């Protein structure tokens, strides 16, 4: 076995003994059974939220973006807050699939597919905001440099907003390609399971004639490694560039060199929180507790502790530098953040982002899905407020006290934001139904991880009962719970 060099102290990644066939069966099961009323209920809700959001967007495009709560002082608020919020969420997927791949973190295998899908959906939601903000979204192509009849008036390559166009579109394209390349072998697996029909024909086209040839696998591994190598700096560059939208301006509170690393850490922080939110529900609903194990959740909470720490450090540094710089405007901006009219938003941010992640130092909390779920929501709220605080509090009291103002979002802005959640969950719910949400090929390759080679020969029969197993052949991990039954399309009513 290729895994034999592993230390006996290693814990298997797939906590239940499974054969390759059982794994295929399990991961394909949700796609092959009819959805239950619960799925339909969730889907109906998501679609109606999406529909409402679409209506609101149509209204504001028809009326003009004067329906927003912006004013002369606060020219950027909800729209860009939500844009940065969604882009940040979109960072975890590529981080999991690319950076953890380069670090050979094999536990990533069972969460990377879903996390990447989440990334794509989050970036779609993010991209909507600047397009809506253009006011005339049908002219969105004007942001691209193409020869035109306006004297060939080019886009301004010195503007961070244009860098954003390139960063986000490249990020979306490369993430989508990375995701699809990862899907090809699994699409072939699904294709080979299907009987003739429309679905089979679709998967036949999508799987591009994949045969499982190792000559192809060998090249595939090279391509995957290259894409991971390319996506790693890419994911770091995207939020760096987003942060430059602010950092290259001269507004106190924005004009800081700390922004790129601070934003990237914040993005990973919020992204992992969102992955946890989704995965904790998914693993229970689909019966994947042995594939997306407590250890996966625990590892992600550790990433949250680290990135949360970086974010806290950034908050502290900003404050310190504001004082240390001796610049009165800079000092005022930060004092106003913490004690001005938006202090409530600032302290929500501090509570959610600085205090709450430290609860993960407790093993009890780190291994309790309910607690992690609650905290992941708290962190998502906190990260939304972080962007709101940075954007609105820096703008609302600028250099001229006569133009000081306050900002309140209108129902249109709130509705648009909620609508993007509708889009996000609609896409995610569809994804869960139509594609294998766990990378079958990759999980198979770690099935033997930290297991004796003889063990999968006697992997457990496909029954509901937990069969009596010979404890002496077990690896070091003590089994506290009875083995999980295999989630096939028949026996789990989902």
């Amino acid at each position: 076995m290729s895994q034999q060099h592993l230390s006996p102290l290693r814990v298997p990644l797939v906590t239940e003994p499974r054969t390759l066939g059982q794994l295929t069966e399990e991961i394909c099961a949700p796609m092959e059974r009819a959805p239950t009323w619960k799925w339909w209920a969730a889907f109906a809700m998501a679609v109606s939220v999406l529909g409402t959001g679409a209506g609101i967007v149509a209204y504001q495009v028809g009326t003009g973006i004067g329906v927003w709560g912006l004013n002369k002082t606060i020219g950027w608020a909800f729209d860009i807050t939500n844009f940065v919020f969604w882009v940040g969420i979109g960072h975890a997927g590529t981080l999991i699939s690319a950076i953890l791949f380069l670090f050979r973190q094999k536990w990533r295998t069972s969460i990377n597919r879903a996390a990447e899908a989440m990334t794509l959906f989050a970036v779609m939601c993010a991209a909507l905001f600047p397009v809506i903000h253009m006011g005339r979204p049908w002219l969105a192509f004007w942001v691209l440099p193409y020869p035109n009849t306006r004297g060939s008036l080019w886009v301004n390559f010195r503007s961070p907003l244009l860098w954003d166009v390139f960063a986000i579109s490249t990020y979306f394209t490369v993430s989508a390609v990375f995701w699809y390349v990862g899907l090809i072998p699994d699409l072939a697996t699904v294709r080979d399971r299907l009987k003739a029909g429309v679905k089979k024909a679709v998967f036949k086209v999508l799987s591009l004639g994949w045969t499982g040839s190792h000559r192809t696998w060998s090249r595939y591994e090279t391509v995957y490694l290259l894409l991971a190598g390319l996506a790693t700096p890419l994911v770091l560059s995207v939020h760096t560039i987003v942060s430059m939208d602010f950092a290259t301006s001269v507004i106190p509170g924005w004009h800081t060199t700390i922004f790129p690393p601070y934003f990237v850490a914040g993005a990973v922080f919020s992204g992992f929180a969102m992955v946890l939110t989704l995965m904790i529900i998914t693993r229970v609903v689909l019966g994947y507790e042995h594939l997306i194990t407590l250890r996966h959740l625990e590892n992600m909470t550790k990433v949250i502790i680290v990135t949360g720490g970086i974010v806290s450090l950034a908050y502290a540094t900003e404050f310190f530098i504001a004082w240390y710089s001796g610049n009165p405007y800079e000092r005022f901006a930060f004092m106003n953040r913490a004690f001005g009219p938006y202090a409530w938003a600032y302290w929500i941010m501090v509570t959610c982002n600085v205090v709450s992640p430290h609860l993960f130092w407790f093993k009890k909390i780190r291994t309790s899905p309910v607690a992690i779920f609650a905290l992941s929501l708290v962190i998502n709220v906190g990260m939304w407020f972080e962007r709101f605080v940075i954007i609105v509090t820096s703008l609302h009291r600028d250099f001229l006290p006569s133009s000081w103002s306050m900002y309140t979002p209108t129902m249109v802005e709130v509705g648009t934001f909620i609508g993007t959640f509708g889009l996000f969950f609609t896409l995610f719910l569809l994804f869960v139904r139509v594609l294998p949400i766990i990378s079958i090929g990759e999980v198979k390759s770690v099935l033997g991880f930290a297991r004796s080679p003889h063990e999968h020969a006697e992997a457990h029969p496909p029954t509901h009962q937990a069969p009596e197993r010979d404890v002496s052949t077990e690896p070091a991990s003590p089994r506290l719970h009875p083995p999980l039954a295999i989630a096939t399309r028949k026996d789990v009513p989902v």
Partner: protein
Amino acid sequence: MSAPVLIGYFEHEAQVLDATRAVREAGHDLRDVYTPYAVHGLDAAMGLKPSRLTWVCFGAGLLGCTLALSLQLYTSVVSWPLNVGGKPFNSFPAFIPVTFELTVLFAALSTVAAFLVRARLFPGNKRQTLPRVTDDRFAIVIAPSQSPESLEAAEDLLRRHGAVAMDLREVAP
């Protein structure tokens, strides 16, 4: 190819690795190994050379980088120079973010395209898959050789390494 190929099916990664090594050592013409996932160590067992796709990636990245810089220089310096506060038209540092993004974009898309072309993966592919190799089986395919003795020897070798099934097929690979 008139003579049929010999296919041996295996159930475990370890067996297929050993069998592949043995097939090559015995001097049979190993056509391919089919696996449900990327088996590590099989590259060496099959004697595959490292892929040259890395060069495609490097070249395409370089091309993307050059094109991005040229585009920005042309638009900002040659085609429509804009004087902003007396700053230089060729504001090179400001061009780096877009250059980086386009480098990555070109490299990624070209690498994947080259991979699909090289591995002959395209929609509407008529290639047949061996039973269960995308699910839970491994298959070793040995190209036919002239003498029936060598075919028998190959069959014997596969069986000794734990093949659970054998097949002779007349297929265009």
